[in-house]
């Protein structure tokens, strides 16, 4: 069926390559960790106490920026107030690790905290978890918002916590600096936590949760249409990310020995965001690179402020120079290269060949398809989709009036009509993106009218979009995986199904191509593949043939024709391309101005006077059909 027209980089190798796979999986933590290890060792050998202080500070900043990245990088939403979770973690840890004497002097804590002092590591973990939990709770309302409202909301949360903590004298010492925090963080402790952060961030972003969230980053609407629980993923990422902010905060506390509420405010949050943006917000490498780069440059600028010996003279810049420099750097990066120094890419994998797992998956998929044959389908139980008396009104204007539609999962139904007839609106109603003003949508006897897109996808409904809406930054394989994850599969199962669909659609050789570098025709095919990767009962195709020539259209026809048998999935085809519609549909529904004006087989429709009058129009169209 398919030959191994693979990527030159893929080679068939025998045997188990587990070590290579593990190396590939943890490549970023390894490389970044080694880089930072080298830097730390270098400073330990050549630098004095002050430089080691600077290095430790940089490592702590790296932990926080990685924390910030876990949310911002994967979700694409800028959290403006994230520093507040560093504050929460720092204080929580102070409550646990300060000596009862010091605590008693400054604070009025409840007995359990006031009288005990807990060991450093468990306390740090507990404080990190605490920050994460608080963040989770704040995320519950925040992630219900849309667009820039979330970012504004995170800012508001920061102000609230700041105000509360600054006045909560008994627990935080109010606006006063809390001293007497045991100092135990040196560069190696910080380094250890950097490794932990790197590993957790990697595990997260390569997990199905990370992938699902990154899909929503590229296109939240398409993500929801693919069954991804965008809200849930955002909340979880927010919590995980805040946990590491909390760790960063407590590391700072145990590094300096004191904390104050005022140290977790707007300038600090700005600097963290600057680090992430300058490094590149879309990759873990970007987070680390950004933190290090900004710290180093700021430090160099500060040297100039103190007066630096260059050749035989002293160059001294006025104080405040390094802050101005940071602001200019930030603007420059945003303007010149908003994807940051790393351009959103991770550390490149230098080895010529991919791991064998990919090739193995592909081969297995090929074998599966050859074994199952063209006539098999995943499930054969008959399903039925009905739309009864659907009406949709916007501000008095009726977009759809009393529309009835019914189909099984073994047929291909066409939905055609002039522009503005209500076709896409109908798809939106069927998939839950638009609420019907009247009428019902029934899937397999269950009335789903009031259910949202996520509940519809659970019941086997999938769609494509006129604008395709691929997850641009993900590879083709990841696009399909994300959709498979959206229907509840995980890890290997999701990947298996993705490969199956790719091979079936002859897209397997493009598996590792990033979606935004696809040719237009391939883009549309991947959009279709993504919908099929959800193993739906019903798939709604919104103008899949737009922009295709006759040959491509015929290919598409052949593909669509096989969907019901291969996937046990009914197809609702919205199209203007009559060649495709007449060639592949069992039945065609014609709507005009929101009402159905005809329904029947292709031949009948072509001769229907109403249809001709309303839609088919010119002679050249008629002759093509």
């Amino acid at each position: 069926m398919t030959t191994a027209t693979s990527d030159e980089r893929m080679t068939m190798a025998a045997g188990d390559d587990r070590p290579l796979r593990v190396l590939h999986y943890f490549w970023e933590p390894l490389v970044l960790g080694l880089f930072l290890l080298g830097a730390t060792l270098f400073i330990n050998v050549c630098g004095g106490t002050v430089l080691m202080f600077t290095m430790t500070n940089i490592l702590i900043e790296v932990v926080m920026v990685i924390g910030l990245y876990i949310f911002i990088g994967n979700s694409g939403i800028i959290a403006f107030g994230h520093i507040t979770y560093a504050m929460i973690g720092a204080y929580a840890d102070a409550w646990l690790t300060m000596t009862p004497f010091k605590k008693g002097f400054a604070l009025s804590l409840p007995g359990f905290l006031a009288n005990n002092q807990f060991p450093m590591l468990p306390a740090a973990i507990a404080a990190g978890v605490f920050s994460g939990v608080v963040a989770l709770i704040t995320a519950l309302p925040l992630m219900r918002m849309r667009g820039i409202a979330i970012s504004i909301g995170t800012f508001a949360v920061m102000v609230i916590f700041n105000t509360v903590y600054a006045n909560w004298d008994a627990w935080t010492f109010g606006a006063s600096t809390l001293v007497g925090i045991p100092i135990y963080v040196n560069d190696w402790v910080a380094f250890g936590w950097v490794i932990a952060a790197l590993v957790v961030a990697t595990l997260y972003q390569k997990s199905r949760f990370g992938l699902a969230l990154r899909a929503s980053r590229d296109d939240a609407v398409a993500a929801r249409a693919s069954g991804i629980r965008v809200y849930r993923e955002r909340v979880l990422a927010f919590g995980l990310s805040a946990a590491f902010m909390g760790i960063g905060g407590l590391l700072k506390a145990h590094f300096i020995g004191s904390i104050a509420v005022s140290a977790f405010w707007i300038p600090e949050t700005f600097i963290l965001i600057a680090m992430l943006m300058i490094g590149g917000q879309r990759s873990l490498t970007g987070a680390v690179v950004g933190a290090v780069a900004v710290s180093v440059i700021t430090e160099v600028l500060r040297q100039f402020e103190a007066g630096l010996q260059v050749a035989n003279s002293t160059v001294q810049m006025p104080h405040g120079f390094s802050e101005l420099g940071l602001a200019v750097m930030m603007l420059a990066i945003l303007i010149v290269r908003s994807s940051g120094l790393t351009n959103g890419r991770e550390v490149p994998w230098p080895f010529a060949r991919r791991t064998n797992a990919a090739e193995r998956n592909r081969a297995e998929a090929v074998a599966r398809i050859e074994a199952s044959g063209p006539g098999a389908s995943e499930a054969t139980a008959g399903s039925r989709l009905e739309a009864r008396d659907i009406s949709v009104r916007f501000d008095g204007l009726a977009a759809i009036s009393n529309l009835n539609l019914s189909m099984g999962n073994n047929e291909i139904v066409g939905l055609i009509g002039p522009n503005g007839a209500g076709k896409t609106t109908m798809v939106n109603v069927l998939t839950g993106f638009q609420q019907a003003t009247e009428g019902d949508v029934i899937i397999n006897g269950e009335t789903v009218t009031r259910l949202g897109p996520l509940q519809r996808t659970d019941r086997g409904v999938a769609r494509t979009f006129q604008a395709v809406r691929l997850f641009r930054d993900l590879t083709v394989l990841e696009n399909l995986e994300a959709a498979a994850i959206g229907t509840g599969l995980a890890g290997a199962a999701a990947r298996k199904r993705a490969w199956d669909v790719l091979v079936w659609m002859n897209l397997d050789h493009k598996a590792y191509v990033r979606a935004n570098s696809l040719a237009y025709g391939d883009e549309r095919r991947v959009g279709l593949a993504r919908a099929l990767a959800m193993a739906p009962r019903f798939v709604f195709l919104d103008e899949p043939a737009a922009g295709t020539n006759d040959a491509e259209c015929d290919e598409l026809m052949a593909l669509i024709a096989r969907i019901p048998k291969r996937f046990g999935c009914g197809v609702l085809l919205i199209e203007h391309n009559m060649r495709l519609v007449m060639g592949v549909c069992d039945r065609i529904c014609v709507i005009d101005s929101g009402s159905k004006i005809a329904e029947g087989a292709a031949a009948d429709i072509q001769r229907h006077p109403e249809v001709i009058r309303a839609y088919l129009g010119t002679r050249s169209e008629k002759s093509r059909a």
Partner: protein
Amino acid sequence: MQVIIQNIIDALSLGSLFALTALGISLVFGIMRLVNFAHGDFISLGAYALIVPSASPTAIMYIGNWPALATIVAICAILILIAIVCERVAFKPLRGADPSVLMIASFAVSYFIQNAIIMIYGGRSKGVDLWPFLQVQVPVGGIRLQLLQLVTIASTIILLGLLTLFLHKLPIGRQMRAASENFTMARLLGVRANFVIAAAFGVSGFLAAVVSLLYVVQRGTLAYDVGAPLVMAGFVATVIGGMGSVFGAVLGGFFVGITNVFFQVMLPVSIRADRDAFVFAFVILILLIRPSGLIKVKSVEERV
């Protein structure tokens, strides 16, 4: 009774300042989807423009000593210029970028301006006395009210009137409204993007100048972040009132002013300091229940 009237005037006066600030923020947001945090720093710059640039702890009035009208014209001109320059340098290259990116850029501008002020003028706050003739009491129907408060409220009403005329009667104003509703369409219809955006920033600079002058008269001290509380309040006002809606910004501004006074008057002393927390909690509530704010602006919502 006297106290209640005085409280109302206090609320209106404070609300006026916030409303004018919110207006400046909202105008720019409507056209560019930019939440300009640097607006507060425009206000600070307007205040510092009154004195001679020097790091000495004593402020030496320069422009502030000119005849009142000349001062007003000068400060307005300076801030209009600064606003337009900021737009050219920092925001124009980012046109069309995601609103979050624009917001970060405005943070960067704000950070730059604040630190530049510290560099030139020093970090110490300076005392100034601008237009002391406004610091008198006027008897109004048996109660003695502050002239400055009345002037603030009156200026706001007049400016709102002028702005409404500007937006509805003048061609440039109509273009701004069109661009605010649908930028692409407006450009296709011949509205020059650069001109309209520059005009929006210019107007916001003008509004910042008015706020700056009124605020300095009242506060009497300059600090590198003197505009910060105003921009926070203005920002809250814009969110509550409806981002992109001019009327909403004004409504939001008065709302924040009134709630501020309300909390100050009603809350018991022990938690009065927590005022800000309540205000921002309310912001979150609004963002949850009615994210488009009190006055909905259609163009801000996303289409599927």
